[in-house]
């Protein structure tokens, strides 16, 4: 499913180069959910961005579903993102000018993978069925994040990448959102890589990896 090998990334700063990732290796199998933990500033987001093709690594390889994300052109990377990846961020990053229903189906529609049955099942399971005509601003934080998760899953991706998706939510809501996410991921047979601070939330997933000093343990 996802295979990251010897991935390195450093940032050039006026004070010198900052090596954030040093030959990182990681494998995630289909249907598996993995928690990525690490201190603030350890490079978790950087790793996620690289996997999503939002940024380019200095060296190393990222292969998703047998296709190399690293080294692909921008257009190819955008296409892989559209079709194979679901992204969930801490900021919900919904499109404020579109209604909830349109937000939910947005990525699936631009990927040309719209499946109404799946979409309505998602809406039902996420408890959004009667909010589809509202605008994002009319939802609570937990509800908005559920829309974001739904948007990521609607495209039936191979991998969902979530970067502290519960950072803006209270504990009870966070638990509920992660449980839902895990359940739906398992249901659709895709993999989940989720960044979190919380060991409690990490324990809800299948496996946990920890990032320190640019290396995964």
């Amino acid at each position: 499913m996802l295979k990251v090998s010897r991935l390195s990334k450093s940032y050039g700063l006026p004070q010198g180069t900052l090596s954030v990732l040093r030959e990182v290796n990681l494998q995630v199998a289909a249907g598996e959910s993995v928690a990525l933990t690490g201190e603030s500033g350890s490079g978790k987001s950087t790793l996620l961005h690289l996997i999503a093709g939002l940024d380019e690594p200095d060296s190393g390889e990222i292969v998703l579903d047998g296709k190399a994300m690293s080294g692909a052109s921008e257009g190819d990377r955008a296409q892989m993102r559209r079709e194979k990846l679901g992204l969930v961020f801490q900021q919900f990053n919904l499109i404020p000018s579109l209604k909830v229903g349109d937000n939910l189906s947005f990525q699936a529609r631009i990927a040309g993978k719209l499946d109404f049955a799946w979409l309505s099942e998602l809406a039902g399971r996420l408890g959004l069925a009667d909010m589809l005509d509202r605008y994002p601003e009319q939802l609570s934080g937990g509800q908005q994040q559920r829309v974001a998760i739904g948007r990521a899953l609607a495209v039936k991706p191979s991998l969902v990448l979530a970067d502290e998706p519960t950072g803006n939510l209270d504990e009870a809501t966070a638990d509920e959102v992660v449980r839902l996410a895990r359940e739906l991921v398992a249901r659709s047979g895709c993999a989940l890589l989720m960044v979190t601070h919380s060991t409690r939330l990490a324990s809800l997933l299948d496996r946990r990896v920890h990032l320190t000093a640019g290396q995964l343990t």
Partner: protein
Amino acid sequence: MTALWIMRVLLSHWMRHRMQLATLLIGLMSATALWSGVQAINQQARTSYDRAASAFGGGNTAMLLPGDDVTVPQSLFATLRRAGWLVSPVLEGRVRIGERSVRLIGIEPLSLPRDAGPAPGLSDAKLLQGFLSPGGQTLIAPRTAADFGWRADQVLTTESGERLPPLQLAPDLLPDLLVADIGFAQTILRQPDRISRFLIDPAPGGERLPLAQVAGSQLRLVEAGSESDLQRLTASFHLNLTAFGLLSFLVGLFIVHSAIGLAFEQRLPMLRTLRACGVSASRLVSVLLAELVMLALIAGVAGLACGYLIASALLPDVAASLRGLYGAAVPGQLVIQPQWWIAGLAMCVAGSLVAAAGALVRVLRLPLLVSAQPYAWQLSQRRWLIGQALLATAILIAALAAFRFGTSLLTAFAVLAGALLGAALLLPVLLNVMLRTGEAMSRGPVALWAWADSRQQLSGLSLALMALLLALAVNVGVGTMVGSFSKTFLRWLDGRLAADIYLVVPDPNRAAGIEAWLRQRPDIDAVLPAARADVRIGGEPVELFGLADHATYRDLWPLLEARANVWDGVRDGRSVLVSEQLGRRLGIKLGDRVRLPTPSGDWIAEVGGLYADYGNPKGQITVNTDQLLQRFVAAGRTRFGLRVKSGAIPEVMRELESTFGLGRRDLADQATVKAESQRIFNRTFAVTSVLNAFTLGVAGVALFTSLLTLGQSRLPQLAPLWALGVTRRRLAVLELCKTMLLALMTALLALPLGIGVAWCLIEVVNVKAFGWRLPLEIFPGELARLLLVAMAAALVATLLPMLKLGRMRPVALLKVFADER
């Protein structure tokens, strides 16, 4: 001390956002520059009217004017003085010197009222002495002398052979004017013992007998301070300029408003931190105010400098059109008064405070804690649109009321302003409806997003779009008006200038001989004698114009409405023709009777027709030449219009010159006169088109800055799309299409609005201002061209921000997703 430190914190923002600072300053500068430029021109013109009015019996001095006739006998002077009237006689006329016709004023310096006369030129004792010396002197403004190529002490000779006293330069004198002692003037003007008017000394004198008892109906009293003819005539011209200046100022303020809005938006976290650190809201606002005033002063001074340059560049054209249209002499060199600087700076500061008011209020109300909810755009946009619609409706209703019940030129402009403002406020509402329709009809998700997102962007872009709408509508309106005017004017010129050659014989004694010579030539089809005389009707100077009875005029004269067989009535002296504007001013209708005072008694005639007399500030009545000459014997049969066989015009002109020694100033062919009229016409509207272009340019800048500022604040909306797999290039193209679509919709709405403006200008403003009405003509080619220009301006304004987006480094987009936002 803390205030200074807070100021430093606030200013640090500008250091990191230089472009934004530049935008703000450019907006303030262009607003101030256009406004103050126009004001400088107006001020200059007004000052010269005032000087004209205060000189030798303009509107600022009380005076006695002839009742019916143009002049009165000098014997009245002594009669008046004896009756206790402290008056001073003035004779005025025009003399021909070389190629020029110059106004000559004869005065009597010793009796001249202090506030009226001596001021320009004669306040100097030495000057007065020379003026009173036996040989006398002719005063002239140094600039005028230089313009005409005359020197001090030169002795000028008029065309009829009279010698003027030697020239003396008088620095304060009005331009285009000669002043001599009244004795000399009477000889030079060949008006012995005649007086044009008496100036009344305001110094409290003794008892004076009632005027009617002293002079009967020969004289009438005109009080001081009543508006001068020039002021009245030129008021609308200046009102036009002022309206343009104000519009540019408003468009400039749009820029300032959006720049300030963005700066506050971006500094919100900083302001919040300052508040959290214990700076009170009022403290913060006062420092922000100080910052704003400082920036406004800097931009204001620069703007005034630009305004000065604009005014000096435009002034020669304005002076030329004022001279061409109204005969008003305005010096072509700009003189700036200190009030202008102060008023300009005050306007700039006040304008920026108004533009920033909304942002300042937000700072006062700034909540200290950021709510997790994103900005509730949906709800607030609804409220905003409803507010806009209500305000627009109120303004439009007021405009309608002004149209329905208003009578003055000012209300006419109020109608125009109300219509424009109402339409501008309504623009976002209309665009919202259009975008909603597009959204409902769109299929693909990205298209759906594009429509919906345009709707969300509306509030940010609407000010710039309103500016674009206003600028375009005014351009269309003024362009259509000028175009209609130009087309009508050319047609009208064809009618008015029906003869092929115009001839004025300078020496009346030779006129009969020349006429006989003309009549026996085979290549001249018709000799049409014309004549003119001046009368006063209802206290207003009116020009009587005599036409021969001939098919040329029967076919071509630009009659607007007429009775049947009007020309027969005109030939017999039973009917006269009245110019449209005179008819409107005096409320004369077809079929009314008018009384024309003539030296041989009153001439009572029926108004047989009304005709177009565009561009003539003076009222005019057209009669038959023979009828006129019978009643005004002194007028002389010296003017002729000639119909010449085609091709013979140059030959006839040459022979007239060689046989009778007639010069270029006595003879004119139709083509030259037409070309000259058109030249004056074009020059008049050159100013308008320059201001038009400026306004459109400023609107373009407004669009550009709004897009640039929006581009930065829109990253959070665009980054998720990019993360979901829409490439940057595609995003940029989408953004470009969206903005162009909005601009196109705005431009399309501007066309009907502009035609409405033209209608308002033609049917309301022009009629009130000038007294004539034009047919409205629409020029589709012109409209298409303007549409293209507007779209090109929008494209240029959009391109840079979009290129920036297309080339944006992913890092910048990634920042949106950073947790520590």
